[in-house]
């Protein structure tokens, strides 16, 4: 009986406590949370907004993607902190971390109230609050639940259930003690949000100088981060043995890294157009945002097994060829970001079988040493069966691209 009463009382008390928490977070930290605006110089209008929060009396944290335009075209934009009621202050970029989508800014306006960073992650299922400025509507606090680290992700992300909306990017997510556990970064829709862990924020703070660097220095930093990241991402894949499984007569990798997920599909038997196909594709769900027109840091693979059974070999060949006649990059890149693709196409022997192999390369215009590569191979059909394999790598060095291609060509073969 007593147990039931206690439980009931706890239930009644719990609601106001929760509300209290959100309210206190709002009241205590309203001043430490600002809106970051990217202002276009000619029109004097906002071109991007996001949230930012004080971590010391003059240092702010926000997302890199909020301020990316300022770095891409320095002269065209200004970075402003909207402190409410016509109080706008110019912000300066101290450091960025494009891999984790973070930026460290300095504000001329000192702020006595700051967020404290949590020393560890909350327990799974614990209540957290995401703060920010969604849709330019003013500060909001959104309660949510911490669901642990995002699985199968190369870039560390916390998984929070709660509505993180555009504009809340760069705002903090805090635990019930109002300590920052991470920075809001993305939403997968349906109340699923992703948060960059506080450890990455600490790393950025530790690496940063107190001086305001030139934009070119920042770009150099970004290049170094991209180079280090692709090395870190690819080296385990290059050194480890790939798990292979058959797709028709072709051998395709299943798990080459925990963050690369594979899917499969086969054509339905009743949909008889003369060619049976089975496809498998592998890829990452996330990539690195560099600008509106450029994303990178992504790996993707596709495999297709074709069986033309009753078709005439020439007819099969005609349709087989059309499968490789068109291919494109997987990451977003504009004409100003990358060069044209330059390709090499040849008949190459892979595990004793002749293959049409196509290898295309494009270079990043602003980031020397980085390339996007595209690989496409089709086994020369002896009968009415074909095997197409394909991968794209975004933002890798020449050595890594070639090493990956070598490994891929050795592993992904026709097993006779």
């Amino acid at each position, binding site marked *: 009986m007593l147990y039931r009463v206690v439980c009931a009382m706890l239930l009644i008390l719990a609601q106001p406590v929760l509300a209290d928490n959100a309210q206190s977070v709002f009241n205590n930290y309203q001043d430490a949370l600002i809106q970051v605006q990217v202002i276009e110089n000619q029109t004097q209008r906002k071109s991007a907004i996001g949230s930012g929060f004080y971590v010391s009396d003059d240092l702010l944290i926000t997302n890199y993607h909020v301020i990316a335009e300022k770095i891409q075209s320095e002269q065209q934009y200004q970075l402003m902190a909207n402190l409410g009621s016509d109080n706008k202050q110019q912000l300066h970029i101290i450091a960025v971390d494009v891999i984790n989508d973070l930026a460290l800014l300095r504000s001329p306006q000192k702020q006595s109230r700051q967020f404290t960073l949590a020393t560890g992650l909350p327990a799974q299922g614990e209540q957290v609050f995401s703060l920010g400025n969604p849709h330019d509507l003013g500060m909001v606090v959104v309660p949510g639940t911490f669901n642990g680290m995002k699985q199968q992700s190369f870039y560390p992300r916390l998984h929070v259930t709660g509505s993180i909306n555009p504009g809340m990017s760069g705002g903090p997510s805090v635990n019930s003690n109002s300590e920052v556990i991470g920075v809001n970064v993305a939403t997968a829709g349906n109340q699923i949000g992703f948060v960059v862990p506080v450890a990455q924020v600490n790393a950025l703070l530790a690496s940063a100088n107190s001086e305001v660097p030139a934009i070119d220095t920042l770009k150099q930093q970004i290049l170094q981060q991209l180079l280090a990241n692709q090395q870190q991402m690819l080296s385990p894949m290059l050194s480890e043995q790939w798990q292979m499984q058959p797709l028709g007569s072709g051998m395709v990798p299943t798990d080459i890294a925990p963050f690369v997920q594979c899917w499969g599909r086969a054509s339905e038997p009743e949909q*008889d*157009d*003369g*060619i049976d196909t089975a496809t498998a594709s592998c890829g990452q769900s996330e990539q690195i945002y560099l600008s509106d027109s450029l994303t990178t840091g992504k790996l993707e693979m596709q495999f297709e097994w074709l069986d033309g059974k009753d*078709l005439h*070999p*020439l*007819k099969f*060949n*005609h*349709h*087989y*060829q059309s499968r*490789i*006649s*068109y*291919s*494109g990059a997987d990451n977003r*890149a*504009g*004409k100003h970001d990358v*060069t*044209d*693709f*330059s*390709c*090499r*196409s*040849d*008949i*190459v*022997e*892979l595990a004793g079988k*002749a*293959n*049409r*192999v*196509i*290898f*295309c*390369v*494009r*270079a*990043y*215009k*602003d980031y*020397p*040493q980085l*390339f996007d590569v595209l690989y*496409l191979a089709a086994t*020369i*059909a*002896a009968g009415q069966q074909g095997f197409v394999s394909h991968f794209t790598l975004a933002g890798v060095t*020449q050595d890594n*691209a*070639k090493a990956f*291609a*070598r490994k891929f*060509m*050795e592993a992904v073969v026709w097993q006779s």
Partner: protein
Amino acid sequence: MAILIELLNSQGRVTERHKFNQPQVSLGRGYNNDIILLDPHSCAEHALLTLNEQQQWQLTDMDSVNGMRNQRGQRVKQQAITGSGQEFTLGKQRVRVLFSDQPVAATQPLHPAEQLFRLLSSPLILVFAMLLVALSMGYEFWLAGLGEDSQWQKQLLLIPFVLLMFALWPLLLAGWARFSGREPRLRPQLTLIFCLLVLWTCWEALAALLNFNLNNSLLTRGLSLLLPTALLLVFFWFSFALMNIQRRWLHISLTVILSSIYWIYPWTQQHNQHYVPQYQHQLLPQPWLVRQPTAIESMLDSSDPLFADTAATALQHRADKAEKRASAP
């Protein structure tokens, strides 16, 4: 000395040629004349050509309704024939008077390709060439058709219309020839164009084989640019030779205009090569592979220039950008 009278059509082409040894020749629509004119604007007794005592020919108008005009268009009553080749107009009929000692043009040698022209006139070859072209089109439709929804059998019905389209040029030439009084030679023209289409199909098959085995070799690329031009050149040369047209500028300019489409078209296309690469993707069944495949390592080694070239382009871009920034205020 005998006298010759030529009747000319409005283009100046000779339609009739008469030779007389008598001292008097009558011209007119009446059936009693030596030369019976068909022109309704000429009179029954229109003009009289006579040799006088001084052994000089003269043409006299017989008070005709529409009269007689000399070369300058002046109406004349009587005109002495002072030289060979003098022209008159009786009503609307053009007439030329020649003396028999008038020299004739040099003999035209037979066209060196006359033997081939005779071959082109063979109906057997024409039917064979048309059949081959129709077959190659049918083959294309059959290749593309896949599954139950395929319409390739129905598409075969299009073939006669496509053939008719290719026959337009010979038909056009034949029509023009009839109008200008030349030989139409429709059949050799038809045979010519269909033989050329057969050659074109052969070239496509050869190109597929070359592309498959040699990738983007200079040989294939050069051939694929030059061959269409060469084929067009041959086509117009034969086509004009058949019609006995010796206007080289027309021949060359038609070839240049038509073949330049082949060169200009790819150039006018929008390039999205930063997004969609272009590469050799020719595939053929294994028996068509006549060369040794490359090894993985040499394929990778040959990819080095791709990195070097694109990196150089990127470097150039950065240099241009820095220069632009430096020159900006």
